[in-house]
C-alpha cells in the first residue's frame, strides 16, 4: 500500500526559534518522511572556537597566556580570561593539564562521534532531499482537532496550554522518494554536527567548515536504516517577520529543529507556494497584516511592501534570481508595481509612468549584464555605416538564431555608431542598440543565453521592442493617459523576458499571485 500523508498524522515539535525577535508569525505544520536509522551520535557544541583553540594549546603543552597568545596571535589578556573559563568548566586543572573530562570534550568537539545510536532522519516528500538534521527521539507536539478536522497546535505549559492555529500543508500527490542509504545518513549527521558547531545558529550550515571537523573512524557498515518504510510526520515551525526594522521587509521560517532560520525550508515553501494558493495566502497574510499595522508611517509601510515585493519576485523567478546582478532592478520594478496596485485608483499617471521606467531599467540592466558577460569585439566588422546594409545583417542574424523576421523597424534602424557606443560603455541606457549588440554577439557564441531564449520565444525581438517603445515613450515625456492594464502587461512582459534569459522558472506572462 502506498504511503500518504493524512491530517491525523503525528506532529513533531522540536522547539523552533527565530533568529531574531519576530513581529508577526504564522505556525506551519510541514510534512516530512521520518526514517528510523542507526547513525553516529550528534552532540551539541560545548566549547566556543576560542575555548577549543586554547584547550588544544593546553593539550599541546602550551600553558601560559603569553605562549598561547604568541601562537594564536591573540592578546594575552584574552587568553588568560579564556583559560579561566575552561578552568571553571573543569576542563583543565590548576597545573594547566587537561583533565579527563577536558580530553573527552576536546575529542567530541573535533571528531565526529564514534558512538552510533538509533534515531531519525527526515526527507522532503517532494524532492527526496534529506533534512540536514538527525534526532535521537521524536518529540511529539500536543494537538487538538478543530471541528473542520485540522489540528491546532497546543503550546504553552501543562498548566496553561495555549492553542495556536497552524496551517497544515498536506501533500496531495507526494510519494515516498528514494530510500536514504548509509552515505546519505552519515552526511546528514555530519551536516547537523556542523550546524550545531556553527557560531551563529541563525546561519544555516551550507559551506565547508574550514577543516575543524574531521570524519572520525566511523564504520559505515554500522550506519543503516532500521525500518525501510518511513513514517509520515509533520514538523511544527513558524514563518515570521523579524521585529528589526532593517530586515522587516523579509520573511523567514524557523528551522523546525531549533537552529534558527532555515533557508532549506524557505526554499521548499517558495517552491510549494507556486502550486498551493493557500500557502501563498498564508505568506501574504503574514506580510499583509504587517502592512496594516505599518500604515502609520510610510517608511514602515514601504519596508513591508518591499518584503512583499521580494516574495513576488521569487514567485515569478524563484529565489535564484537573487544571485543575478540585475535583481535589484527587478525588485525595484515589482515594488513600484505593488505600490500602484495598493494605491488602486488613487495611482496617478506619474506613478504609473514610474513603473514603466523601472521596467525599462530592468531590461537595460539585463542587456548590460549580457554584454558584459559575453564579449565579441569582432561584431563591428560585420556591420557598416550604411543603414540598409546593417539592417540586413541584423535580419540575417536574427533569422539564423531562429527569431521571427522581419525585425521591428526601430531595431532595424539602429546605427553602427550606436552599437559601437554600447559596446564601449555597456552600462549605458540605450536599450535598442544593446539589444542589437547582444543579437550580433550571440551569433558568435554558441553558449549565449539569447540562443536558448530565441528557441523558446521566436517573437522575442517583438516583445523587446514593445517594452522599449512604451517605456521609451514615457521616458521621453509621454503625456497620454496610462492605464493600469498597459502597465501590468509591460511588467509581465519584462518578467517573461528575464525568465527567458536567466533560464529561471516561471518566465511566463501569468500575473504574479497576489
Amino acid at each position, binding site marked *: 500500500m502506498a504511503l500518504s500523508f493524512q491530517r491525523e498524522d503525528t506532529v513533531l515539535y522540536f522547539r523552533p526559534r527565530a533568529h531574531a525577535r519576530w513581529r508577526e508569525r504564522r505556525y506551519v505544520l510541514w510534512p516530512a518522511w521520518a526514517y528510523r536509522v542507526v547513525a553516529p551520535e550528534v552532540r551539541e557544541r560545548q566549547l566556543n572556537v576560542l575555548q577549543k583553540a586554547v584547550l588544544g594549546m593546553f593539550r599541546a603543552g602550551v600553558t601560559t597566556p603569553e605562549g598561547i597568545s604568541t601562537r594564536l596571535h591573540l592578546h594575552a589578556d584574552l587568553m588568560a580570561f579564556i583559560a579561566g573559563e575552561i578552568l571553571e568548566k573543569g576542563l583543565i586543572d590548576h597545573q594547566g593539564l587537561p583533565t579527563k573530562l577536558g580530553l573527552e570534550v576536546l575529542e567530541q568537539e573535533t571528531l565526529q562521534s564514534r558512538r552510533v545510536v538509533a534515531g531519525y532522519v527526515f526527507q522532503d516528500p517532494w524532492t527526496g532531499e534529506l533534512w540536514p538534521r538527525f534526532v535521537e527521539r521524536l518529540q511529539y507536539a500536543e494537538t487538538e482537532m478543530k471541528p473542520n478536522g485540522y489540528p491546532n497546535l497546543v503550546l504553552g505549559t501543562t*498548566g496553561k*496550554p495555549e492553542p495556536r492555529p497552524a496551517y497544515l500543508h498536506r501533500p496531495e500527490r507526494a510519494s515516498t522518494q528514494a530510500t536514504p542509504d548509509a552515505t546519505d545518513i552519515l552526511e546528514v549527521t555530519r551536516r547537523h554536527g556542523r550546524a550545531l558547531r556553527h557560531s551563529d545558529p541563525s546561519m544555516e550550515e551550507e559551506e565547508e567548515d574550514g577543516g575543524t571537523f574531521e570524519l572520525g573512524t566511523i564504520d559505515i557498515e554500522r550506519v543503516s536504516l532500521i525500518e525501510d518504510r518511513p513514517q509520515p510526520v509533520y514538523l511544527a515551525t513558524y514563518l515570521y517577520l523579524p521585529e528589526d526594522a532593517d530586515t522587516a521587509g523579509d520573511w523567514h521560517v524557523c528551522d523546525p529543529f531549533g537552529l534558527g532560520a532555515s533557508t532549506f525550508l524557505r526554499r521548499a515553501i517558495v517552491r510549494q507556494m507556486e502550486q498551493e494558493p493557500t500557502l501563498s495566502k498564508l505568506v501574504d497574510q503574514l506580510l499583509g497584516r504587517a502592512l496594516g499595522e505599518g500604515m502609520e508611517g510610510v517608511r514602515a509601510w514601504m519596508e513591508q511592501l518591499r518584503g512583499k515585493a521580494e516574495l513576488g519576485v521569487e514567485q515569478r523567478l524563484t529565489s535564484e534570481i537573487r544571485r543575478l546582478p540585475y535583481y535589484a532592478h527587478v525588485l525595484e520594478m515589482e515594488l513600484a508595481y505593488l505600490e500602484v496596485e495598493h494605491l488602486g485608483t488613487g495611482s496617478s499617471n506619474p506613478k504609473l509612468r514610474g513603473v514603466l521606467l523601472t521596467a525599462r531599467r530592468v531590461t537595460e540592466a539585463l542587456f548590460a549584464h549580457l554584454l558584459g558577460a559575453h564579449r565579441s569585439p569582432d561584431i563591428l566588422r560585420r556591420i557598416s555605416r550604411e543603414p540598409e546594409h546593417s539592417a540586413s545583417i541584423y535580419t540575417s542574424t536574427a533569422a539564423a538564431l531562429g527569431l521571427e523576421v522581419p525585425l521591428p523597424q526601430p531595431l532595424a534602424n539602429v546605427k553602427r555608431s550606436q552599437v559601437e557606443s554600447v559596446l564601449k560603455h555597456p552600462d549605458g541606457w540605450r536599450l535598442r542598440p544593446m539589444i542589437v549588440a547582444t543579437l550580433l554577439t550571440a551569433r558568435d557564441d554558441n553558449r549565449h543565453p539569447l540562443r536558448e531564449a530565441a528557441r523558446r520565444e521566436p517573437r522575442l525581438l517583438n516583445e523587446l521592442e514593445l517594452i522599449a517603445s512604451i517605456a521609451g515613450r514615457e521616458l521621453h515625456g509621454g503625456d497620454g493617459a496610462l492605464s493600469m492594464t498597459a502597465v501590468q502587461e509591460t511588467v509581465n512582459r519584462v518578467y517573461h523576458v528575464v525568465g527567458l534569459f536567466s533560464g529561471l522558472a516561471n518566465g511566463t506572462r501569468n500575473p504574479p499571485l497576489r
Partner: protein
Amino acid sequence: MSGGERQVVDMNGMRYRLGRQLGQGGQGAVFEVEGGKLAAKLVFDRSASRRDRLRNQLLQVKRLALGDLELARPLEMLRNPHVGYVMELLTGMVPLKRLTHLPREELSLTQWYLSGGGLRRRLRLLARTADLLSQLHGKGLVYSDPSPHNIFVSAAPDGHELRLIDADNLHYQSPSATTGIYTPGYGAPELVRGLRGVDTLTDAHAFAVIAFQTLAQVHPLLGDTVTEGEPEQEEAALRGEFPWIDHPEDERNRSSLGIPRDVVLSPRLKELCQHTFGRGLTDRLARPGLSTWAERLHAAADATLGCPGCGGTYYVTASACPWCDSAKPAYVLASFLLSDPVVISCGACRTGYTVEEAECPRCRTPRPEGVNRTSLVRGPDPGRKRQAQAVLTEQTPLVITERLATGHIGRGSNAPRLEVRLQGRRLWLKSLDGSVYPLSSKSGTRSNQVGEQAVDFPLEAGQGSWRLHLGKLEQLHRIVGFELRTEGR
C-alpha cells in the same frame, strides 16, 4: 547513573539525559529529561525485594487502560540498575497545597485567597479532581493517597489544568486490600485505625478533607480544642473520635479559624460535608461518592458571580460581595431545564403524561388539541424543574459546555458548545462546535437558530426570554432560559 553524564535507559534501550532535579521525596527524586517534555522519576530503595515489588507495581500501572485521564503516568519503565519511570513533564504546575495552606509571610487571608483565583477557581479545580478520581473509581481503581501534595494544578491563577502525580499509588480495589498508605491528615478513620486498606471510600474521605480545606482554609476535624490540646488529641480527632468542626449539634470541636462557611460552601456542599464528616466518620458507607462531589462542585462553580470591585467570586445568592462589600452587578441567570417531548403537562392538575394517552391519568381532563408537545421534566431539587443553573455578567461570558448541555460529567465534559455574552441589555449567542441550535420564544410561536454567526435578543429584568434548545426538538434534551437580574442596582 554516572556522575559526569547522568543518564538512564528505558526498557526499549532509549537513553535519557537527566537535567536538573525537580523534586525529592522520601522514596525517590524526579529529574527533568533533557531536550523534551519528559521527566524521570527514580526510586531509591536499597532493599532488593522492595525494589522488585515496586517495579512490578509500576509495570502494572503502566499496563492499565487509563485512556487520557489526567495522570502523570509511567510512559516507559527504566532498565536496571534503576527503578523508576519516564513520565510527562509537568510545566507551569504547582501542588494544590499552594491553595490550601496560607503561607506564613502572607498578611491577608482574603488577598491571598483571591490572588489564587478565588472561590470559583477553587471550586472548579476541586470539581475536576473529584471528576478524575470518580473516573478512576469507575475503572475499579483507587488512587490510595489523595493529598494536596500529589494533586498538581495550573500555577497561573486563571488556569484550570490538573494532574495527579505519583501514579505508583494506583491500586485495583480489593476486599483484601492491605495497603494502608495515606498522608497524615487525609487518611480515613478506618485507615488511621489500621482496620482496613485503601478503597474508594478512603479516597472519598481524603478528597472531602482536601475540598473543605481548600475552600474554607481549615481542617474539618481539627478544631480549637484539638489544635490547642495534646498531640494525642489530634490523633484521636483524625481517628474520628471527635465531632467535626461544623457539627450541627455537638460544639466540642468548634474552630475559630477559616473562612465563614456560608461564603465558601453552597448548601448542597455543606450537606456533603455533613455526610462525610458527620455520620461518615464512623459509617464509611454514609460518605458521598466522588461523582456526587464532582456534580455539586461544578454546580457551585457555575453559580458564582464575579465582583467588578475586587475581582473576587462569590455565590450568586449572596446579597453583596462578601470580600469587599461591593453591590452585585447586573447578571443573567441561565436556567437549564429538561424537555421531554413525549410528555405533556395536564392543564388542570399539572400532572405529566405521555402524548399517547388521550386524557390525564389523574384528573381525566382530555388531552387538549394542538397541545405543545414540549413539557419540562422535574429537576434534582425538590419542587424545582431546574437541572442546573449558571451565571454570566458583562465581564464574564458563559461557555455552555458538554456538561451543562447534557449533564454528562467525566471525559469530554469540558468541551465547549456555545458562548453566551451579555452586552447592556442584549444577550448574544454563538455556537462554538459548528452545530446549529434552535431558539424558540417563550410562547413557542416564534423560532430562530444559533450557529457560528452570533445572534442576539433583548432581555428585560424579571421577564422570561427566548429559550435555547441544546438538542433536537423531538428528542429528550436540555433547554436554557435566560433571566436578567439587576438586584443590586
